[in-house]
């Protein structure tokens, strides 16, 4: 339901054409990360630590080196710590340490060595020939335990300036923000609820494992093919880790089989390049599913304390949250994001939030769709739901009463521009789902969600062909149909058919820098750049038309794909179609292209409201989701079908996180469920159809009003489902996932 009755000022934007890569993807010919090969190619494999925390005493690779099928073996000594670029520091150092362990293995699955051999089987077999001597150290995997005074120290000196004195060295970043007088706020309340919540780490669960093909020579020149959300960051990082110049490494992004934030950094790519440099042959590395779970970047786990005061009329008088996030053995857990997002949907006089970034012996966390926001929303929106229950207030009315709007001072500081939260709440209240009767055993939950969205560095180039068609080069890998959106936006400006525009994800050698496809930024930022690049080309088209007509360029305007004379000094000429201008462009001034490079700042924050019905089997604690509705502000939906897809996908991932997905570590610090059998993402039979409502409150920061839609959809589900389950079961669920044993135990405790 995309507000289809609204009169559109657009010709192409808002329509639903077939995606340009559709044919490739339904016939099996689309090339993903593992689908390529090169002459003389070797296969790489990586040896990983079986220990959660261990000092590496010695690595003996001599037997592997001697094996006839093995062409290269690398360890940390083969990377550019010092010899090439002394002083690798900050995040590059962290990534290197994560990609190949140095003095210590910091988590179960941490890479310690790698081989390249003539076949994948031979490479795997050769790993068994490498002997590693470990001194096993005490480990910690739980966030609260990692902050305790007696916790093993992951790494001394990892904390930054923000951490208050006296904290454990595993606390590496600290965030505090808010406004008003929080104690006065609680004193004003008729009811104050204080509660604690826990969420486990989850994985993005993209179906395509990491895969790459690297080629690097001793001349410092290389090529890399990989599945990634951002090949420029892969280029920059790999170059730094291998001690080569960034521009000498050309990186091509394959088709990407899902990322959701998890493919925004590198894991195997520097290893493949190091092996290739040593063997002087191309090396392909493909992760197994187990490696993906053990050694890529899951989310943080979290432990949170929330206190909210409310008046009898539903006004929130004070809100406070402490959010502790564990992000693995490196700094980076988004405790600050969790803190800033938790109360962001509300217009609060008194609010205070604290976030901790805590290290533990787990893999280095990576982004996962609105990183940090879903867990905070779970805790905050659960307490709001409980306040509504105890004060007998309607949960949407209460949220409407407190909702942020244009001009509201956000919980994290700035004042909002035009936002669409109220509109999503009103649409939720009006939706038939909200009025539908519930059956016995069912409960309904509601939650709002917030995410910042991001702009980021962006380059786009557009070139016209003689026949009047256009090729558009963007640098943000297409993770959900963005090539279709880009073509629609370009068509809108150029006035030529959608089908006449070919969109390519350019490699790093053919376009300027582009940030990663993350932060819900692609349709916003690459879209904005596409529009500007198309306008740039249109300006040139108008110049050529003006020259042909012999009139000033400011007397020519662009309409429906044609140059047309405009204004009193223009004269009377027939509209000149784009193809008539490009046909002889070689002789009228040369090729016509447009380009745009910038870091757009107006991404515009994003809000959504979800309604969910859940049914709980009181005898087994098993939950089924019986109905689900996503309502979210898209600003302007460029290709509404793919916007719906983002909403549905976010909701489905949220259902998995809420009910079944979790990282399970044993007492030995090893991950126990590193296969899809036991890391339980939703299957088709687990889910209902997922209804969507696209609210469109245009973003003033985008020419067509676009707000990114990729991430916000996973923010409300954890809380909405927890509220639905709690209301169905009659007992508040404070820990995710709400697996059947946890629900049954809660029911028993509740009598």
């Amino acid at each position, binding site marked *: 339901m995309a507000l289809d009755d609204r009169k559109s000022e657009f010709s192409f934007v808002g329509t639903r054409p077939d995606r340009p890569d559709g044919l490739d993807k339904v016939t099996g010919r689309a090339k993903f990360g593992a689908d390529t090969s090169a002459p003389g190619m070797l296969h790489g494999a990586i040896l990983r630590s079986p220990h959660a925390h261990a000092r590496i005493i010695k690595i003996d690779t001599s037997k592997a080196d001697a094996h006839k099928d093995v062409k290269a073996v690398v360890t940390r000594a083969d990377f550019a710590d010092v010899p090439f670029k002394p002083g690798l520091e900050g995040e590059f150092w962290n990534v290197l340490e994560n990609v190949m362990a140095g003095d210590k293995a910091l988590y179960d699955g941490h890479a310690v060595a790698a081989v390249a051999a003539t076949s994948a089987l031979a490479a795997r077999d050769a790993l068994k020939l490498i002997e590693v001597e470990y001194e096993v150290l005490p480990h910690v995997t739980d966030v609260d335990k990692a902050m305790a005074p007696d916790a093993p120290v992951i790494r001394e000196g990892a904390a930054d300036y923000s951490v208050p004195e006296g904290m454990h060295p595993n606390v590496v970043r600290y965030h505090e923000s808010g406004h008003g007088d929080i104690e006065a706020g609680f004193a004003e309340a008729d009811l104050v609820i204080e509660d604690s919540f826990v969420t486990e780490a989850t994985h993005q669960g993209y179906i395509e494992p990491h895969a790459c093909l690297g080629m690097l020579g001793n001349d410092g020149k290389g090529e890399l093919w990989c599945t990634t959300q951002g090949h420029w960051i892969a280029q920059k990082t790999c170059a730094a880790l291998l001690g080569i110049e960034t521009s000498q490494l050309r990186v091509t992004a394959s088709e990407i089989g899902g990322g959701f934030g998890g493919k925004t950094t590198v894991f195997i790519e520097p290893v493949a390049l190091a092996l290739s440099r040593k063997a002087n042959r191309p090396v392909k590395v493909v992760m197994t599913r*187990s490696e993906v779970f053990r050694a890529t970047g899951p989310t943080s786990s979290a432990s949170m304390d929330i206190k909210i005061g409310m008046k009898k009329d539903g006004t929130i008088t004070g809100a406070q949250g402490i959010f502790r996030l564990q992000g693995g053995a490196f700094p980076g857990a988004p405790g600050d994001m969790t803190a800033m997002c938790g109360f962001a949907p509300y217009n609060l006089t008194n609010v205070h939030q604290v976030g901790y970034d805590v290290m533990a012996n787990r893999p280095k966390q990576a982004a996962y769709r609105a990183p940090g926001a879903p867990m905070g929303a779970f805790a905050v929106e659960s307490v709001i739901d409980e306040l509504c229950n105890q004060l007998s207030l309607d949960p949407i009315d209460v949220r409407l009463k407190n909702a942020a709007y244009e001009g509201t001072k956000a919980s994290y500081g700035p004042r909002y521009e035009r936002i669409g939260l109220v509109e999503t709440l009103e649409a939720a209240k009006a939706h038939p789902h909200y009025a539908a009767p519930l059956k016995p055993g069912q409960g309904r939950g509601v939650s709002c969600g917030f995410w910042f969205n991001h702009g980021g560095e962006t380059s786009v180039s557009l070139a016209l062909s003689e026949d009047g068609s256009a090729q558009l080069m963007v640098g943000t890998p297409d993770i959900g149909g963005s090539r279709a959106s880009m073509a629609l936006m370009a068509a809108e400006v150029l006035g030529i058919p959608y089908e006449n525009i070919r969109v390519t994800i350019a490699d790093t050698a053919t376009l300027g820098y582009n940030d990663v496809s993350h932060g819900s930024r692609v349709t916003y930022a690459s879209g904005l750049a596409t529009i500007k690049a198309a306008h740039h080309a249109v300006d040139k088209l108008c110049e050529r038309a003006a020259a042909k007509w012999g009139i000033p360029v400011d007397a020519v305007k662009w309409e429906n794909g044609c140059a047309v004379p405009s204004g009193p000094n223009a004269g009377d000429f027939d509209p000149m179609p784009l193809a008539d201008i490009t046909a002889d462009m070689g002789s009228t001034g040369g090729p016509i292209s447009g380009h745009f490079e910038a870091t757009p700042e107006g991404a515009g924050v994003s809000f959504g409201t979800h309604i969910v019905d859940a049914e709980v089997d009181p005898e087994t604690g098993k939950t089924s989701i019986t109905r689900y509705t996503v309502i979210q502000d898209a600003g302007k939906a460029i290709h509404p079908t793919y916007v719906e897809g983002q909403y549905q996908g976010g909701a489905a991932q949220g259902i998995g996180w809420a009910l*079944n997905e979790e990282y399970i570590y044993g007492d030995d610090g090893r991950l126990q469920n590193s296969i899809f059998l*036991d890391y339980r993402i939703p299957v088709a039979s*687990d889910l209902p159809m997922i209804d969507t409502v696209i609210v469109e409150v245009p973003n003033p920061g985008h020419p067509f009003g676009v707000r990114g839609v990729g991430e916000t959809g996973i923010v409300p589900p954890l809380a909405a489902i927890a509220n639905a389950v709690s209301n169905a079961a009659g007992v508040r669920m404070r820990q995710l996932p709400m697996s*059947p*044993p946890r629900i049954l135990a809660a029911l028993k405790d509740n009598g």
Partner: protein
Amino acid sequence: MDYHSPASFAEASALAANATGITRFLAGGTDVLVQLRSELVAPDTLIDIKKINGVHDITRNADGSWTLGVAATGAEMSEHAELGKDWPGVVEAMDLIGSTQVQGRATLTGNLCNGSPAADSVPAMVAAGVTVTVTGPDGDRVVPVADIPTGPGKTSLTKGEVVSAVHIPARGDNGGDAYLRFIPRTEMDIAVVGVGVNLRLDGDTITEARVSLGAVAPTILLVEDCAKAIIGTTLDEDALDALATAASAACNPIDDKRGTIAFRTEVAGVLAKRAAKIAYARAKGENV
């Protein structure tokens, strides 16, 4: 790794008897290949028994009993209407294993010989009184299914022995069976608890019953006390409560990534009641 595809069970047995190191038989392969891939088990010898004549056959014998070839897949069992009419619990238990794709390969025999305490088809087979023929260097012997698994990943089969046929008893009159399992999702999971019930009625009264539990002990359990709780009853509320109590009492589970001791113990009773009701209705001739 050596790979063989013998033409007879005698040949398969001889190959296994003479092999050194780790030997695995390949029926559907849905467990063996996973173990091979993850390097949990690295067999030195793999013996593919699917090229032996008749291993896909599903045959109803003159006395009403059934003989299944060891490579008959879950999909082939589900598509066999007559088998499903006689033993819906056994067929459904097999059908619960894995996806449609896995059903295209997985077999009763493989599920049995994998030795998992959580195997779905095994409680159903134990409740149904299924036996298997074991071919070994000394010839054939017939063994109750319950006697094959001896612990997680372990079986009573000795070197050179291979299961060569599956025998399901004649259904007989006024009988019904059912199998239920608990999983957190709707599909694709390993059982957290499984319960098989097979019973026979005289009028409304249960005269025979076999109740088995999966995933609540190191091996599949055949629980006498559960049978006693419902034999002689019409499966009234008291009988169901006694059945649940007996099922929970028989549990000796572990806490693991799939479930807790408390959860498994409680849910074993819940599922026993639910499965018994289905089996009872089927024995009455109801189509459930």
